């Protein structure tokens, strides 16, 4: 049976001249951040560790790196984001290597990142690379596989990669969660996407990620993401 819906199409939008403005854009002070262009290159290293070691060990090693760098460099930028590493001095880099060696994690971090850093030699974390780890023949295929997974923003790889950033922020005291927030149950993310609670946490993570993509946490003036994407098209040109 037909039922007439008399509400106007896009009735919740505000008309400004000939434009219909969505309600969210009326809130002001919001900046659009591209997950693909910005977020993936900033934290792809976490996904690479997770792929090699699984989500628990990957997160532990990732935290060790971010913690070590944060102890050595007091920048406001958060060191889960690769662009932040552009600001490190050579001295900082040497101290970070020493610290990771002392914690017996340097090699564990170097190994899975070797192919990535060989393909992207100007990556700000390339100082972590050990030249004795040679790029494997399937290095490019490996990175492409990681990217294919990450393009699915609600997929497991992307979710755990972003989830780790939230975990690092909490562990290093840069994030405080209000009582009752679903994000306090972060460990339950491990079941994603098979439980309702894990889906709610994942949704919270995705929304929160955007809140951290600002000048308080990452070096938005850095060159890394531009280099990353242009290097990709240099490695395999897009031709017709």
């Amino acid at each position, binding site marked *: *049976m*037909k*039922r*007439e*819906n008399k*509400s106007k*199409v*896009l009735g919740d*939008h505000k008309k400004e*001249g*000939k*434009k*219909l*403005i*969505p*309600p*969210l*854009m009326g809130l002001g002070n919001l900046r*659009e951040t591209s997950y693909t*262009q910005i977020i993936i290159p900033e934290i792809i290293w976490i996904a690479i560790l997770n792929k090699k070691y699984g989500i628990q060990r990957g997160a532990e090693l990732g935290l060790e790196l971010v913690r070590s760098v944060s102890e050595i460099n007091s920048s406001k930028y958060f060191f889960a984001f690769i662009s932040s590493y552009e600001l490190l001095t050579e001295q900082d880099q040497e101290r970070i290597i020493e610290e990771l060696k002392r914690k017996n994690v340097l090699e564990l971090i170097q190994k899975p990142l070797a192919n990535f850093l060989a393909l992207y030699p100007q990556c700000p974390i390339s100082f972590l690379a050990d030249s004795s780890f040679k790029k494997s023949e399937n290095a490019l295929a490996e990175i492409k596989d990681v990217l294919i997974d990450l393009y699915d923003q609600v997929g497991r790889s992307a979710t755990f990669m972003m989830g780790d950033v939230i975990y690092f922020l909490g562990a290093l005291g840069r994030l405080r969660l209000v009582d009752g927030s679903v994000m306090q149950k972060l460990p339950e993310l491990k079941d994603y996407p098979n439980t309702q609670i894990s889906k709610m946490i994942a949704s919270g993570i995705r929304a929160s990620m955007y809140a951290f993509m600002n000048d308080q946490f990452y070096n938005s003036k850095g060159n890394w*993401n*531009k280099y990353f*994407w*242009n290097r*990709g*098209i240099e490695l395999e*040109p897009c*031709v*017709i």
Partner: protein
Amino acid sequence: MENEQARLDITSAISIYIDNIYLELKDRWNNWDVDLTRKEIKEVVCGILSRQVAILTNYSSSPNLWNGDMAPIILRSLADNYINLAWILRNPEERSRKFILHGLGQAKLTLEHRKKQLENDGFDPKNDPIIDATEKWINTHRYTFWTEVNLGSWSEMNTRKMAEEAGCIDFYNHVYQPFSTASHNMWNHISRYNLTYSENPLHMFLLKPIVVRFDPELEYLELGAKYLSKMFKLFDTTFNFKPKVEPSFEHLRNELNRIEAEFRDGKDNPGKDQNN
């Protein structure tokens, strides 16, 4: 040259032309470097070039469109595409984005109309595959909740103003505007192409419908090819691009001139082919 031979030669020239325009597009896509973090510029500019090539590819192989009644519909679209590009190229970064966002807004508006229609018809829009696919397509660019809808022109000005700003007002006046009458099905086109005077003196020059199967005129093919060529030249000048392939238009024009001359020559000297 006989009719049949001329027809075969024209078909061959067009087939080569279609291959060549694709090579011209390919040359520009493959050899024009653009920073991937500003990829909208390359996507929009080459998308518009690609559109022009696609129209020409199909138009060139459709001789039944090369006449004063049908060709203007295509030629006006080619002119519109050209003016869009000319205007975008005056500020590629900002205007490429504007072009994309307007398109997304239009898709969102269509989507919302469809949702409402389905609801009114008693269906659940959430189960509609077209809505799902369109929403996903929009979200690959920008989330629908971020997408504003512009009910006006994408450039926020009319085409005449765009042409003025882009330095191609003559093209607007002599191509876009006259061909618009056909594509908008206006009286000055309909009365000349789709109506004819009744010959009966009792009818007071009443205009009556007529559907004409026009013969193809090569001039209309050449006009389309010229507008594509003009677009490639605009691209090359703007980006100081040095093409690595020969211009297709000149080759096509030379071939058509040669075929026409041989055909005329054959008509003037009917026995010439046999004697040689």
